[in-house]
């Protein structure tokens, strides 16, 4: 239950009491509460836990991390 997984925001709906969004988890679309991530936009990746987006995944930073690892010397 503790797992939080990344999904991509497909659409955002602000017509109700809560800011909600449809999030794509590798082809499975789920309705997620975006109330805690007002900065998140369509196309962004969100980290989702028990029905709530809790953070935005900074893709540029993630790619930088991987690029830095590529630079590591092979033993």
């Amino acid at each position, binding site marked *: 239950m503790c797992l939080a997984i990344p999904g991509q925001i497909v659409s955002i709906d602000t017509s109700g009491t809560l800011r909600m969004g449809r999030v794509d988890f590798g082809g499975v679309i789920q309705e997620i509460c975006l109330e805690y991530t007002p900065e998140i936009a369509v196309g962004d990746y969100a980290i989702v836990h028990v029905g709530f987006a*809790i*953070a935005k995944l900074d893709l540029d930073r993630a790619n930088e991390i991987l690029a830095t690892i590529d630079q590591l010397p092979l033993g």
Partner: protein
Amino acid sequence: MQATDFGNPNHVALLVQQIRAKTTRPWTIMEVCGGQTHAILRYGIDQLLPDSIRIVHGPGCPVCVTPIETIDQAIQIASTPGVIFCTFGDMLRVPGSDGDLMQAKSRGADVRIIHSPMEAYQLALAESNQTGSNRQVVLFAIGFETTAPATAMAIRMAKEKNLDCFSALVCHVLVPPALEAIFSDENHGIDGLLAAGHVCTITGYHSYDAICNRFGIPIAITGFEPVDLLRGIWNVVEQLESQPRNDRVVNVYEHIATIQGNAHAQQTVDEVFALCDQTWRGIGILPQSGLKLKEKYALYDAQKRFSIRSDRSTEASPCRAADVLRGKIRPVECPAFGSLCNPGNPLGAPMVSNEGACAAYYLYQSIKEDKSQDLEVDR
């Protein structure tokens, strides 16, 4: 579609090499997150590391630390006629002092599995719109700092809509007080710590500085993918091996977690909850380590709404969960592991939840041969 690949075998191999090159002495590193426990076992990360690095698992599974009294209360409430009891699936088979929620369900209790606290709120909203229904929806609200904002939102919404058919049995626990309790024991034997990335995503990681300084333990805020875990371990090993030591809190989950955390989530948690002393199964009462509903939300407290007995529940079993949860032993070192105790007949909560350390070892030990095949790195 996958956003990033944090499990690439080449990256894993490169990171393992850095760790090997850095390690000159035995170190014990603790993680405190069920998701990390599983990833470590699932990808065989413990097998890839040099033998001198021992990974132990702290009280990182909220299901495992939910006290037996609370399980007993859950069963009592769920068995009350007219109650719809909503819980995460992992709680169903956690043993109370007499049976579990699954057995209550098979005796006719209306126990429903939810994936978000908002599902319980929605159910209550639907009930309240149904004329003549006087059913009560109860949310079993467990989890760490990561989950508390979701519960807080469900309760805040229930109050906004004046739902009187909704309440929550709250058992939220906080990680830093548990770490303090573990490290306060002189013989804790832990050299470094991987702090759970998603907890920090909510709370930020200011509070970890105090733990790092007070106990002289380097801390890496760490995620859940193989690359995340290895970067965390690498950072902690580097800190441990540096001369002179300069123990710090370092965020290696920097693409997701920030030092401030999620202010919106923190606000809602503060609006709904106050700190309280809390019993941790296998550990005992830890001061200011749990969340309780604030007075203005007391109406939504299931403990108050349902007059439940609170007999002291006792635990009589050879289960060594207390030592597993403090990182003193690994599950395989428990004499009951795999023999008396297995997922079909769990003696303790860590064997029940799929985030429990004992269940993770049991599951992945049996497929050990295939284990390091996904991430082929020669030792």
